[in-house]
């Protein structure tokens, strides 16, 4: 594998919930170092697409490859797909870090406990090594002083930064952000965006579903506009925000601004 191998590659992805088709054939490639921002109105399918990348949602059709490795899938009785190889699924998932809208920290563990959990339990790292690494990443997100706090004792912004540290600790091939600031009070959004901005400037691979257009414009190397389950337009941020072609996108950008 060389550097040109896409970190994440989605080919003709379809997802159907019952009679509702949420994704109608999406193809998307994120190369190592790409920061892909996915924008679009609510119900456009952007979160569903992101959740298909680590199989939290199973696609109805289509292929997904992580660092050149396709998920092995098999057909289900109701005409969809499901992961056929549990071991492979777990191995690939462990290389993808996801940051959720609602943080989803483990409230029975401290900040440090949350961050070392996956390195120790899933990756089999010795505890002291995991702790050392955890302290590093906690320092990066500005939570060095909080390692013994429990999630319930922290603000939303701190919790989300802890969730980002939890992802950094596994040194993922790609980071998936699912509207990471949507559940935050307005005054807490900035601290989280700053952390993500830092990470983006380090050329980490990211796929970022967001409503923060200014932020997407700043950090993304590539912007994808989703509309009704299809990619309506994509390109570099200057083009998407500066010179949108599709009328829907033009209207979407006007409505946000």
């Amino acid at each position, binding site marked *: 594998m060389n550097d040109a191998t896409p970190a994440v590659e989605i080919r003709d992805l379809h997802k159907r919930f019952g009679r509702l088709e949420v994704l109608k054939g999406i193809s998307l490639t994120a190369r190592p170092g790409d920061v892909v921002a996915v924008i679009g109105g609510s119900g456009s399918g952007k979160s569903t697409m992101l959740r298909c990348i680590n199989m*939290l949602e199973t696609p109805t059709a289509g292929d997904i490859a992580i660092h050149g490795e396709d998920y092995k899938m098999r057909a289900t009785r109701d005409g969809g797909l499901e992961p056929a190889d549990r071991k492979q699924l777990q191995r690939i*998932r462990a290389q993808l870090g996801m940051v959720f809208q609602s943080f989803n920290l483990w409230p029975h563990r401290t900040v440090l406990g949350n961050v070392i959990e996956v390195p120790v339990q899933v990756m089999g790292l010795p505890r002291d090594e995991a702790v050392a690494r955890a302290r590093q990443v906690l320092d990066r997100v500005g939570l060095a002083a909080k390692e013994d706090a429990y999630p319930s004792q*922290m603000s939303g912004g701190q919790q989300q930064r802890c969730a980002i540290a939890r992802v950094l600790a596994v040194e993922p091939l790609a980071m998936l952000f699912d509207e990471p600031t949507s559940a935050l009070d307005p005054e807490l959004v900035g601290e989280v965006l700053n952390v993500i901005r830092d990470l983006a400037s380090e050329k980490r691979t990211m796929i970022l579903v967001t409503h923060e257009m200014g932020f997407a414009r700043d950090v993304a190397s590539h912007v994808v506009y989703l509309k009704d389950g299809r990619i309506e337009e994509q390109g570099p941020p200057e083009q998407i925000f500066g010179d949108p072609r599709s009328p829907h996108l033009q209207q979407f950008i006007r409505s946000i601004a």
Partner: protein
Amino acid sequence: MPDIDIVTPIHPAPALPLRARLAPLLMPHRLVMAALALAALAAIVTQMNWSWLPVYLPKIGHGLLVTLVLLGSSVAAGFALALPLGAVQVTGPAPLRWLANGFCTVIRGTPLLLQLWLIYYGLGALFAQYPEIRASWLWPYLRQAWPYGFLTLTLSFAAYQGEIMRGAFAGVPRGELEAARAFGMPRLMVFRRVWFPRAVHRALPTLAGEIILQLKATPLVATITVTDLYAVITRVRQDTFLTYEPLLLLIAIYLCLSGTLTIVLRWLEGRVPSGH
């Protein structure tokens, strides 16, 4: 509208000086109540007949031990059974789910005394009919009463606690489990590291109450000849023709036990901060 701070944890109030803490206790009506209570205690000790106590103390101690062992073992075994009973009702395949649900419903819907007698007289008589069982190494145990008491109490605790665990398992926010899966945890690890500890912690506040209910259910085993604390006290009453003194002692002991349990479990609960 005042700003409500949901972020800062609630810290215990700073300790007041001793005088300030005593002040509420020194209010006149409280002093009167305290005096009455002391007088009642003095009357109980001096006016009532406690001469039997030294004679029966060893037996009472033994009865207490039986009660505690029965309580501890049936709670431990019942809890171990309650975990699968609860988990299966949330995620299990349909037949297992029905089975667990049926078990909980039947046990919780019938009197414990009835279950005890059915198991003791029914199962006990059934076992006695099989020479294989009578010849086995188990028979010395199975011909005694306590295994049946233990079994009944265990099943009862499992059913009640199983229902609580069902709710606790179902109540763990999906997102926490999803995060675990998203990081590549195998299913068993998700259960062991996230789902199970979170469910147990959610069930802990009710566990204290359930254990105390279980403590208060233990005297029923006296009806199948297990000499627990209650059986010993009954024996004292028959021997001495005293009614109140032994019963007062019994109340005091049960009260101490449930009080201790409450304090211990509350401490345990406080050690792990809750999610929200």
